[in-house]
């Protein structure tokens, strides 16, 4: 009988990514850059929401956007045309999510030192992006009304890792069986600490609340580096 040798490894395959993500967060802290990881299903209105929000914030913060998709650059162009801020497209090469290393490569391709707030628009998907820490300071997700208020029950991991849940397309609520109170309840069952902001990216309703959240979060993360910000816009 052939002899076999067994080498014990006992290592989570997410361990390296978690380490990379923590290292990236530390770099971002040192540089005073707030990175938001924005996730959602395809078609929930991520890009439209971003255009509205960035236009409210671009006089207060220097902003850049990284668009992650499996293919195409339509979103990066839309952001650039709609807001004028720096916007780059990341291709995941068929992968359904971004990891910390891919996020770092994206950040390395932005103009150095030119942004206080970087928004990463992750691949449209409620499963995989939740598994991989991108190194972002905060996670947010958009749930749109047509998807239904029961999504927090079906995709618990996504809702449990998000600091903020935006409920988009509230203008069409009368046409769907969407229960906003139930939705809040389900989100908080999965994550009692998550903030919930109802918005309509098309009409702009509630988008100011999201912009304020981003501004507060960015300032809190930058700490004493905000002095530079004030000088910049003085």
């Amino acid at each position, binding site marked *: 009988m052939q002899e*076999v040798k067994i080498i014990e490894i006992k290592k989570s395959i*997410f361990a390296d990514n978690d380490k990379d993500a923590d290292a990236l967060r530390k770099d971002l802290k040192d540089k005073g850059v707030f990175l938001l990881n924005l996730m959602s299903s395809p078609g929930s209105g991520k890009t439209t929401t971003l255009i509205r929000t960035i236009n409210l914030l671009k006089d207060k913060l220097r902003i850049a956007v990284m668009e992650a998709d499996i293919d195409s650059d339509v979103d990066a162009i839309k952001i650039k045309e709609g807001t004028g801020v720096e916007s780059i497209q990341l291709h995941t090469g068929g992968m359904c999510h971004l990891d910390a290393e891919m996020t770092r490569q994206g950040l390395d391709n932005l103009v150095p030192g030119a942004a206080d707030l970087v928004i990463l628009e992750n691949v449209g998907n409620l499963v*995989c992006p939740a598994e991989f820490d991108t190194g972002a300071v905060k996670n947010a997700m958009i749930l749109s009304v047509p998807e239904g208020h029961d999504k927090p029950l079906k995709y618990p991991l996504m809702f449990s890792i998000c600091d903020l849940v935006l409920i988009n397309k509230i203008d069409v609520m009368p046409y769907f069986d969407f229960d906003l109170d139930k939705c809040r309840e389900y989100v908080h*069952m999965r994550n009692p600490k998550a903030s919930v902001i109802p918005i309509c990216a098309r009409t702009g309703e509630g988008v100011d609340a999201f912009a304020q959240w981003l501004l507060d979060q960015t300032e809190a993360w930058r700490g004493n580096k905000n002095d530079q910000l004030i000088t910049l816009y003085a």
Partner: protein
Amino acid sequence: MHELGIVFYIIRDVKAAAEENGVEHVDTVVMNIGEVSTVVPEYLTDCWRWAADKEPMLQGCELRINTIPAVSYCEKCNTEFETVRYGKTCPKCQSGKTYLLRGNEVEIKEIVIKQ
């Protein structure tokens, strides 16, 4: 859905471990996969076959999966219960204050080399 991405991570870690141990060819990789890890074992082994055969060190290498049953714990009545069967609600006291003890593992347990 993200099994192929996970396979790339496994390949990277297995190759690193093999090189560290001076191994030229790995015959079996044993994974611990938790019941609620969101990894579908059948997809994982399908993706594995496709990707592993492209690596000389892993050609023909088998991916064996140990399933780790998911167990949750109720903070209110200190009971352990099956996560897949009862979800987030404790079957004994109906409390929602529960958390997962084990069952979300995606880890490489060991690699096997024929000598």
